[in-house]
């Protein structure tokens, strides 16, 4: 049973990134999606610590919640070199490895000698749930967004399989949403990995927003990541960047007696990007090769924040992505895919905390870790066997393409 009560539920949140000028209908649909995911979340968010409505938090301040976007699991299972190869391995790599709430596609083009080379990287942190709202409620807006992103306007047939989507019911339009899969695969419009969803973000913040504690020598103490993830039987989440960062930041605030909530606009954002690491012919990257979009934070002075980032030259220019160099100190290498870019990017949601009050001893959720080995060996994680299979698939594909 949830105690959730909101004064103005329908318009708690603007659309992610304030990125689209939407009508109330879309905004309401988005808020309904948020509310529905919150209420049905398996982590049972406790409104006492994690209210859905950020307006319920007074004396608020921003929490710093972000993490590096390069997939961490393959780095634990293997190393950075293999992680890069597999993460850049087309849709197969994206499906398995892009699980830090940031996905990308590599756009390839032929050079003048006919060789296929990487041209650009499209990076996205947009939630699929928002795109579903738009596709269901406002076909015109969907087409407008796509035109802005792709530069061309898809036909109604492309998007809905009919000449006139307005004759379809919302459910029928929603059923056609999978038609976007191919465009999404090619262009990274929104995140499609099963654990990069709105529901997953709400789950992990809800999971962390609990006053867990352990008893040591009769004293109540703060629990560690390993103790929490082991006691709650979610060890598989403990070796990524995203889930520990989001949940432990929320936990830190709650254990300190604060509430946490998503700040408006709820979304996942590219919060930092070290563009200085990139160079072209020994000079800083041309500004037009770094295209941020899908956010409008300029009024808050956060215009570097965005949900979409495109790196690389346009089709009209004779250069390629691998003409760009990424540098760390004296080490320099060509950019051949998205993994290298993601190493310089931090992503995260906007989280606010506040309403401080002391926790009572009865508030703590004491974790029973008696006799449990809480050590988590990330190089032995179950996902490593799946990544091994992907590695074999990758190596096989290289054999076939080798001269």
């Amino acid at each position: 049973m949830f105690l959730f009560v909101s004064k103005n539920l329908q318009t708690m949140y603007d659309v992610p990134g304030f990125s689209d000028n939407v009508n109330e209908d879309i905004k309401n649909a988005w808020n309904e999606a948020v509310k529905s995911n919150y209420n049905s979340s398996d982590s049972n968010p406790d409104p006492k610590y994690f209210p859905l409505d950020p307006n319920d938090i007074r004396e608020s301040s921003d929490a710093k919640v972000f993490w590096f976007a390069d997939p961490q699991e393959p780095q634990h299972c293997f190393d950075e070199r293999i992680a890069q190869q597999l993460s850049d391995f087309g849709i197969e790599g994206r499906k398995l490895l892009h699980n830090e709430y940031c996905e990308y596609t590599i756009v390839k083009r032929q050079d003048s000698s006919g060789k296929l080379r990487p041209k650009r990287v499209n990076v996205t942190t947009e939630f699929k749930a928002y795109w579903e709202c738009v596709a269901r409620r406002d076909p015109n807006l969907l087409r407008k967004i796509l035109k802005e992103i792709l530069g061309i306007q898809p036909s109604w047939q492309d998007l809905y399989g009919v000449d006139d989507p307005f004759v379809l019911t919302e459910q029928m339009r929603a059923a056609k949403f999978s038609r976007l899969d191919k465009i999404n695969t090619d262009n990274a419009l929104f995140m499609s990995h099963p654990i990069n969803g709105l529901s997953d973000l709400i789950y992990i913040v809800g999971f962390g927003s609990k006053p867990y504690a352990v008893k040591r020598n009769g004293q109540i103490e703060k629990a560690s990541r390993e103790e929490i993830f082991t006691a709650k039987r979610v060890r598989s989440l403990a070796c990524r960047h995203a889930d520990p960062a989001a949940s432990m930041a929320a936990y830190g605030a709650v254990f300190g007696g604060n509430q946490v909530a998503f700040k408006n606009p709820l979304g996942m954002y590219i919060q930092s990007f070290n563009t200085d690491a990139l160079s072209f012919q020994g000079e800083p990257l041309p500004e037009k090769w770094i295209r941020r979009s899908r956010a409008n934070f300029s009024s808050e002075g956060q215009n570097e924040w965005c949900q979409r980032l495109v790196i690389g030259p346009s089709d009209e220019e004779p250069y390629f992505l691998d003409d760009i160099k990424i540098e760390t100190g004296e080490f320099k290498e060509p950019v051949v895919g998205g993994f290298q870019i993601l190493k310089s990017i931090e992503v995260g949601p906007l989280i606010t905390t506040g309403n401080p009050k002391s926790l009572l001893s009865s508030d703590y959720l004491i974790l029973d870790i008696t006799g449990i080995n809480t050590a988590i060996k990330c190089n032995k994680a179950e996902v490593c066997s799946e990544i091994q299979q992907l590695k074999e698939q990758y190596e096989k594909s290289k054999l076939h393409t080798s001269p």
Partner: protein
Amino acid sequence: MSFETKLQEGIYYDKGIKPGNHLCMTFLSVRDQIDAPILGKYLSELWTMYDELKKGKIRDLPNHIVPSNHLTILIGFGINLFKKKLRNAKRSAPDQLEKYSTFKKPLPTGGGPILQGAGLMYDDDIKTNPATEDILIQFIADSQLAVDRCVVETWKFLNDKSFYSNEESPLVLGNSYTGFQRDDFRSWIDFHDGISNMESGTARLESMRIKETNIDQEKWTQNGTYISFMRIRTDLSIWRKLSTVEQELAVGRNKLTGCPIISITESGLPVVIDGCPVPGTSEVTETGNEHFKDISEGVIKGDKLPESHIHKANMKRSNDTFLRDSNRIFRQGYEFFEPIDISPGFRVGLNFVSFQDTPRRLNDILTSTNWLGKANFGGSIESSAEMKRFLTIRAAGYYFVPPYSKVDKFPGSSIFLE
């Protein structure tokens, strides 16, 4: 047969141990390309001499023991050793050493950023970075003499070897940098420093221990670490132009008590956390104030304070240090004072020393705009052009610190010897 490996000595991370009061960081250069076994044999002999020094034995004073003052000696190897100097090495360069262990070269005219995206620059007179030699040796002891003596004995060793064998020593002594611990827990800018380091023990260990790996050729590095060294000059003439309030907001602490600042009044005055320091004490370093040394999520109010140094340098304050993404590093810095022959007659600053499981942790702290990227120190004072020169770098380097096992002739001997 495999033997248990562990971190080398000289990393004072555990509960109940305290680093010696004096540091000397010495750099050795390998003269030319050399076969790994030959250099390995030479280093074994040097290490034997170091073992004797730790027992107070000086080769020129047989049977006369001198105080060693809890001397510890740590050795690290730089990327150039693997890539340019060693022939027939038994180990290849660790992956993270190869990718992340170099700083940019200073500009030919001096100065320039140390990393792409970093706000720390080389000092204007620094045209070459002296901390890029092949080998780093860290000496720590409780007296200045005990660490200085190590450098002199190293010189004697290298010199004697070439004198008696009539051959050039394969090693050349490079720069040495000395420093000391302060008993007031402050730095040259008068503020408390190093008090929000991680808890002793596991949290520190997990931030710096190279973790288990499934990659065969990297397994030998497990339980080793990476050391970073930066000789950071502090320009007090710039700092002292700031008012006390400006200084406090830049640091994020009260200047006198060290209590963390959690908000700013409408008139721009800093407000420290309630109850700090506890009655009967005057500084955050005193007993009873332990929980004020650091602050938890949700305590800071307003949007200016997160820009201050103690926050920019440590955005994730948990003790969950295992994951690289935490960017937690174990700092073991030593202040320095050196007389110079130009005004004002001295140079002061910090020998920044940190240990981490990959150099990427520190690189990310120094270059991400969420952290210290583009910032020289932190705080809204960064808008002043002069403040961008407040801290400058005189030397900077990364070295791989191999693990040690009882079968090793010296830490890292398996790089050179079968």
